[in-house]
């Protein structure tokens, strides 16, 4: 089965800054792919390039087998998009937004739309501008799935929603996924959301796709290893799977992906006093992978500050 989304060397500059760098992404048909990254990592720009809002400087992207920069209307009708912040034409009421949107699509599942609007008890005559963020997200979801799209692209759809609304939104999304087996690409920086729905994840760090693997594999293969030394720790040698290292006094914290025998041998060669291998949940794994060299402010982290002073 062909990929629903594929990109090759997709690159975008804003001025001198490379926001998406040589992105090779494949989203198999029928999968739910979570695109993760910190604010400004290039997630939204990637999605906008896929949808043709933004033209890439280099590389190519295809959606449902068509070139993303010249998507024909018939293919566009099969792709639903929920933009960050749930933009609408704000003077419209929910009914007007439904009528406006319906006029563009050859297929329209009015029954499903009614089910979703009724489920969320959304007042049809209410003006969009008067709805809460959560209600606008719910209207977005209803309008996105009503045309029976083959592919849903969601850009941080739960941003700004409270915990309860977020949970409702994601559970509705899960039901929709299970019901139709659609392909979904969801970007988020809320890890728990992605963990609930995605069977594969990609992590963008400064515009570069650093991780692209099944969600479970990512969780299982990432380890934080804490090495204690009698004196100042040595530098950790460069090796495959090394994500980051961090020295705190006589302690060396190392984050490794694909932790295995070769890493164990490397660690033994450093002759640490003690070795502690920790498993990470997705959130911790994501933080370790994306945080870079900057840690908590010493002023706000009294314990760490004490450590540094003691062992320096």
């Amino acid at each position, binding site marked *: 089965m062909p990929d629903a989304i594929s990109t090759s060397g997709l690159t975008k500059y*804003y001025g001198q800054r490379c926001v998406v760098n040589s992105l090779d992404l494949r989203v198999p048909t029928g999968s739910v792919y979570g695109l993760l990254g910190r604010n400004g990592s290039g997630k939204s*720009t990637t999605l*906008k390039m896929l*949808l043709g*809002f*933004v*033209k890439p400087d280099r590389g190519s992207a295809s959606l449902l087998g068509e070139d993303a920069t010249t998507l024909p*209307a*018939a293919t*566009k*009708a099969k*792709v639903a*998009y929920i*933009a960050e*912040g749930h*933009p*609408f*034409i*704000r*003077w419209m009421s929910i009914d007007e937004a439904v*009528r*406006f*949107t319906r*006029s*563009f*699509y050859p297929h329209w599942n009015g029954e499903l739309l009614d089910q979703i609007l009724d489920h969320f008890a959304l007042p049809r005559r209410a003006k969009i501008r008067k709805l809460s963020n959560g209600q606008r997200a719910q209207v977005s979801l209803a309008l996105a799935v009503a045309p029976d799209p083959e592919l849903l692209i969601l850009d941080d759809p739960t941003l700004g929603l409270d915990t309860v609304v977020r949970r409702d939104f994601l559970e509705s999304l899960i039901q929709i996924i299970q019901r139709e087996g659609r392909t979904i690409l969801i970007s988020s920086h809320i890890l728990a959301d992605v963990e609930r729905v995605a069977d594969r994840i990609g992590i963008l760090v400064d515009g570069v796709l650093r991780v692209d693997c099944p969600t479970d594999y990512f969780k299982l293969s990432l380890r934080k290893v804490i090495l204690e030394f009698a004196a100042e720790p040595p530098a950790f040698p460069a090796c495959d799977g090394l994500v980051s290292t961090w020295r705190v006094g006589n302690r060396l914290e190392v984050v490794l992906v694909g932790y295995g025998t070769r890493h164990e041998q490397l660690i033994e060669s450093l002759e640490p006093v003690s070795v502690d291998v920790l498993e990470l949940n997705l959130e911790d794994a994501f933080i370790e992978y994306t945080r870079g060299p900057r840690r908590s402010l010493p002023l706000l982290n009294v314990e760490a500050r004490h450590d540094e002073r003691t062992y320096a």
Partner: protein
Amino acid sequence: MTSALTLKELRESAGVAALGLAGLGLVALTAIGFSPLGMVISSGRPSGTIPFLYDSFGGQFALAAGALAIALGLKQSLGDLWGDSQLFLLHRPVSRRAVYLTKIVVGLSLYLVLAGLAVAIYAIWAASSGTHASPFAWSMTVPVWMTWLAVGLVYLGALLSGIRPAAWVGTRLMPLATACTLATIAANLPPVWGLAVALVAGASFVALILFVAETRDFA
């Protein structure tokens, strides 16, 4: 689909159109001598004026029509860019060309109808016997009709200024400034040449608007 886009544009332009109609109506009624603001300013036609030849209608009309054209063009372009509603609109299965062509047709039609109405009211009044003690021939209205047509360029320039990405306000307003210059030239040339300039410049502006709409990033 086209009717949905047309209704959207009409609904979003209704406020500006209503203000424009009020302004242009005021200009026409003042020229006739029935100014609703007569209590505050002055009422009645100044003596010794000849409609369309020796009166202030042409200048006042150009200002009011220009203001309407600029407001319509900017409202139609910037209105969608603010609040990201362009992401909601442009993702629909319709080409950007169709979206912006609908905007142009609706905006230009609104301008031409509203501004044309003001000229028509004044011209019909001037052509009616017993309304003023001066000669009248329809050919006297041609310069104002030329202004009416030429100011359409200002609408197109404003729309292009609104959708064209630019680093600072000076370069962003360049299409509007160019359109104002071309409109002034077209309105002051002999009618045939003025018409030619207006049509060629108008077609160029439409082509530029569609080109920018199709090629720019909507980030």
